[in-house]
């Protein structure tokens, strides 16, 4: 019932969700503890990949989470939930 493309898309979304954590990380990148010279350089490396400002970052991260869930729902044969998840507006600022 579910087209092969759904599975491929779900895999793509899963990979994109991993990559999204680079450009819109849920937490600020931390230096390796007691990292000497390398720890801060590694933290700078990670920080440089996420140049987007707060609300934009949150919106992308939020979208990634919803799309990942939608992809999963579609693969599991639940297009209604998938549609609902994708169609809902991004929420850059939480109200809860």
């Amino acid at each position, binding site marked *: *019932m579910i*087209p092969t*493309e*759904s599975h*491929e*898309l779900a*895999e*793509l*979304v*899963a*990979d*994109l969700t*991993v*990559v*999204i*954590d*680079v*450009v*819109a990380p849920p937490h600020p990148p931390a230096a*390796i*503890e*007691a*990292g*000497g*010279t*390398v*720890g*801060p*350089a*590694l933290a*700078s*490396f990670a920080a*440089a*990949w*996420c*140049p*987007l400002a707060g609300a934009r970052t949150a919106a*992308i991260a939020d*979208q*990634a989470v919803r*799309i990942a869930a*939608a*992809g999963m*729902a*579609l693969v599991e044969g639940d*297009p*209604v939930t*998938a*549609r609902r998840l*994708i*169609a809902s507006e991004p929420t850059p600022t939480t109200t809860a």
Partner: protein
Amino acid sequence: MTAAATLPDPASLRARARELSVIASAAERAAARFSARALAGARDEDAATISGALSRIARAHRLAVQSINGFAGHLEDAAQRRLALRQLVDATRAAPRADRAVVAHVQELCGELVTQLDREVDEAAQRYAEALRAATPRTAEADEVAEAVALALDHASARLLQLAGSDPDPAP
């Protein structure tokens, strides 16, 4: 100078390298899908932009993984050499009828070798940190990449919505 006490644990460095490697692999797979235009509906120029951005992320993260693992290997090697020197001093000190002058001389030599070892580790740290800085994007480049990744998400989202709303028995 980096005192040995402030150096990172090689195991935590390797763990961080594994995390970065997961990111690189995910970016490579996603780039390949866009490159192969597996995502139906993505315009050629969008697919190329997205694939390029994902490839840049993948390349930079592979470089970072190489640097971090290289430094971890250097630290592990230095730790083994430090241990061997300590064992040599202990063995000399514990030797029956050990000549105090000889023990003092061995201690002094080993102390010099440890100092040299610390210096080598400091130099390696500088070298690997420099390699990490080389793999660090400038703000404009990172901006482009981030926007391209967001665009990739939009395409995936649009295609998912299309599939979720499509006829389960599509026409040939």
